[in-house]
């Protein structure tokens, strides 16, 4: 996508912002701004007009007051690992980043609560909670880089969300600054309010409603025991049946993850080689956690279901080291693909679990038809697919094929009763697919709610919602 260079900030506006956050924290140099021109979805590149890095809620509020007085659009940004282009600044927008807001504000082990600043990295929260036998459950694969603010904006998931649920189940309170600089408190554990669930609708709002500046989350006690097994299959469909059978048993694994043949081969060809047979077509990771005493029986039942479904081999782990080795192929899948292709488009969609096998077959046909390698890594228990399209950005014809294949994949998932994104969000990239899952009335209702939080439409503009039918020619 074309990168239009933005209008620089006026000296006067720059000075006012520096007056709030300090001289070092307003970035305007073209070469330093390069670091902010894309997120994890590198197909889109846009340079912001400036980046402002406040330290506190109060500073965020003052920065937004100044920018809103000047009518400058604002784009919140965490670590920039998002995969839908949500943190990109369009046109004349200024990025307000949370990179300096990384403090733990309060840790309350007795009530299993933490209050943090939004720039805290996901895994750092778990590290801080560990001495108390607690952890933060939502674990996106990017957890060592992504921020909790970003997680809230995207309502992020992760492998263990099958049993434990996604981010929205864990956020219990928020301090939010809206575009006009107002500070609003939402939720708060231990309090019942008669208003609407503002917190609930803020989670997943992708930076379009305001900036979360303080976050209160629930922590969980670390499970006493964990058991992991890995089953290798000659057919992807058989791995899918194993998943269905395990769930039909009434078992609730903590995670049920599949990587397919192309992914296995990518992993084995990379420095992350995990010792998978390269002629296999699927590897299924099943993990159980909970009270030690009950785990072995669950594992045995799951192993039996895998074998019945045709697993050629089932591996279990006897030590923590071996357990991590079983996860290796799954965890390093993205990294491995990065090594075999110059560019990677990580798709994201959810389908009802019973449709997995059919949908995967159709995705594979789409790959063949467009002459693309598609490697699947997915949260099978939730039906959350990640077809990864490998390509070379310097080949415009191939880029066009990737586009067409993506559109077809979305249509297939929606047709199967699913949706266009399970955890990566709509951002910039998927606005065009929104009408596949929402009618005009639903989109209109979303627009009205956006307008309640952001009447001027300057908070992360051009994201999530397609242009309103009557606003032809609005910014794209």
């Amino acid at each position, binding site marked *: 996508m074309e990168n239009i260079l933005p209008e620089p900030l006026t000296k006067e506006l720059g000075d006012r912002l520096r007056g709030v956050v300090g001289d070092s924290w307003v970035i305007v140099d073209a070469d330093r701004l390069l670091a902010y021109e894309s997120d994890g979805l590198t197909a889109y590149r846009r340079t912001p007009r400036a980046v402002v890095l406040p330290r506190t809620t109060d500073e965020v509020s003052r920065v937004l007051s100044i920018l809103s007085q000047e009518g400058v659009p604002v784009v919140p940004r965490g670590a920039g690992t998002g995969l839908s282009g949500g943190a990109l600044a369009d046109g004349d927008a200024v990025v307000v980043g949370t990179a300096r807001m990384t403090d733990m504000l309060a840790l*309350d082990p*007795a*009530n299993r609560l933490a209050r943090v600043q939004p720039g805290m990295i996901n895994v750092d929260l778990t590290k801080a909670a560990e001495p108390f036998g607690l952890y933060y459950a939502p674990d996106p694969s990017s957890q060592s880089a992504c921020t909790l603010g970003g997680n809230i904006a*995207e*309502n992020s998931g992760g492998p263990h*969300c099958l049993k434990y649920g996604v981010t*929205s*189940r864990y956020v219990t309170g928020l301090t939010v600054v809206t575009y006009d600089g107002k500070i609003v*408190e*939402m939720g*708060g*554990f*231990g309090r*019942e*309010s*008669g*208003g*609407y*669930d*503002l917190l*609930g*609708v803020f*989670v997943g*709002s992708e930076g379009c409603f305001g900036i979360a500046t303080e976050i209160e989350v629930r922590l969980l*006690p*670390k499970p006493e025991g964990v058991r992991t097994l890995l089953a290798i299959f000659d057919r992807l469909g058989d791995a899918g049946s194993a998943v*269905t059978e395990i*769930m039909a*048993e*009434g078992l*609730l694994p903590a995670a049920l993850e599949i990587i397919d043949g192309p992914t296995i081969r990518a992993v084995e060809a990379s420095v992350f080689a995990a010792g998978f047979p390269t002629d296999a077509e699927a590897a299924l990771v099943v993990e159980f956690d909970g*009270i030690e*005493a*009950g785990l072995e*029986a*669950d594992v045995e039942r799951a192993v039996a279901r895998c074998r019945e479904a045709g697993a050629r081999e089932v591996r279990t782990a006897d030590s923590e080291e071996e357990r991590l080795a079983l996860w290796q192929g799954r965890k390093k899948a993205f990294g491995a693909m990065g090594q075999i292709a110059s560019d990677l488009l990580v798709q994201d969609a*959810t389908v*009802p*679990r*019973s449709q997995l096998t059919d949908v995967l077959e159709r995705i594979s046909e789409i790959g063949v038809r467009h002459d693309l390698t598609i490697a699947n890594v997915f*949260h099978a228990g*939730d*039906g959350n697919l990640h077809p990864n399209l490998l390509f070379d950005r310097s080949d415009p014809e191939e880029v066009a094929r990737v586009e067409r294949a993506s559109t077809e994949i979305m249509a297939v998932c929606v047709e199967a*009763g699913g949706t266009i*994104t*399970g955890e*990566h969000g*709509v951002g910039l990239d*998927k606005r065009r697919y*929104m009408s596949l*899952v929402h*009618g005009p009335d*639903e*989109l209109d*209702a*979303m627009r009205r709610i*956006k*307008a*309640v939080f952001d009447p001027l439409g300057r908070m992360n503009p051009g994201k*999530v919602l397609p242009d309103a039918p009557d606003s032809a020619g609005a910014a794209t």
Partner: protein
Amino acid sequence: MNPLAELLSERLSKGQVIDGFDTEAWAVCGRVPQAVVFPESEAQVAEVLSLSSEEGWRCVPGGKGSWLHGGQPPQSVDVLLSAERMDDISEYEPADMFIVAEAGTRLDELERRTSECGQWLALDPPGGERGTLGAMLAVGAAGPLQASFGCPRDQVLGATLVTGDGRVLALGGKVVKNVAGFDLLKLVAGSWGTLGMITSVTMRLHPTPASDRSLLFKGAEAEDGAELACRLAQTPLPLAAVELLVPGEGESGGGAPSPLVAVRILESADAADEAERVLSESAGMAPVQRLEGEQSAAIFDNVRAMEDGAELVLRLSLLPSRLPELVEMTSRLSDLYDPNEGWGMRLAAHAHTGVLRVMIAVVSRPDGWVDRAKTVLGVLRRSLEAEGGSLVVSQGPPEIVSAVSAWGELGPAALLTAGIQAAFDPAGILARGGSPQ
């Protein structure tokens, strides 16, 4: 028929509208509607609501009418829309663990259907199984199981909402992970019908637990019971629920009522044995009773029924670790009732969330009773709010609820709340009046 009912029956049919004396059973917090309509499709709901928006008739959506006395009393009610005749289970996919049912579907019917396939809806809201699905979502009702399974907001996958001005919105979907656009479903859960009428709901289901065990521990006094409940909830075990139960003065056979802590474990039998060992150690005593299977479920069904027959139900909350203080504060309510009338005052608390339900059988009505209740509850609410907690008047004599308001003030969030209400209900026919909605 009155003119309003007349107009409605022209739009629907004669058999779908009642007025006059028959509507008394459908009073909303004591406000008797001019007409009750029984739409049979979302199109009919849309028709009634858009007509009402044009005419400025105030509407309240309802289910079978078992909980119309709860929440903030509306200023007046012209039309009550009952979902009673919309009770089809439209889609059930056991393999995908979701069920789609119309709003008027009874929870016991849902339970019957899902249990045939070894699944259940893991929610145990007050009011037992008589309630309807739509109403449960509308009021966001949840019971002890919220400790492990969350509330309706966490388990609803999709819903159809007919807005105040008659737009039919299909929100969410059928899959567990879905971030396609803003999550308007969260607004609908707990909206008390002020955004529109829910006509259909898609819920996530869980496999029926292989084993169900409840352990009852006994504390000497209410506050001791609260401490015990806190301690048990803080063990690092996957407990389905920890509930403190204090019977009323009138049901404890004389003497001070002795509290029970009921712990529910929905793990395998081996894991439950281990949990029982850890819990007993932490409690410093063995449980006074162990209940398995249906008996375990039954004790928690009783918890669901604890609000039955109560004239006043309050929900007090603070952080869970402060449950003992919260229990102690209930002594401030002694002026509001006579312990010798009915069963007196019962308490039930969710130890994991710090919510304490106070149920009073009969409210005393000496001269100036409303003012006194207003003072007592107002002072208590302020002191809880100052500590980050809250006081909700969940149901009660309309005089009290109107005077005290069901919920506390919203502060700066009030503007957003009002904006959201107007976005769904531009004519304001569903707004409940008073603070906050």
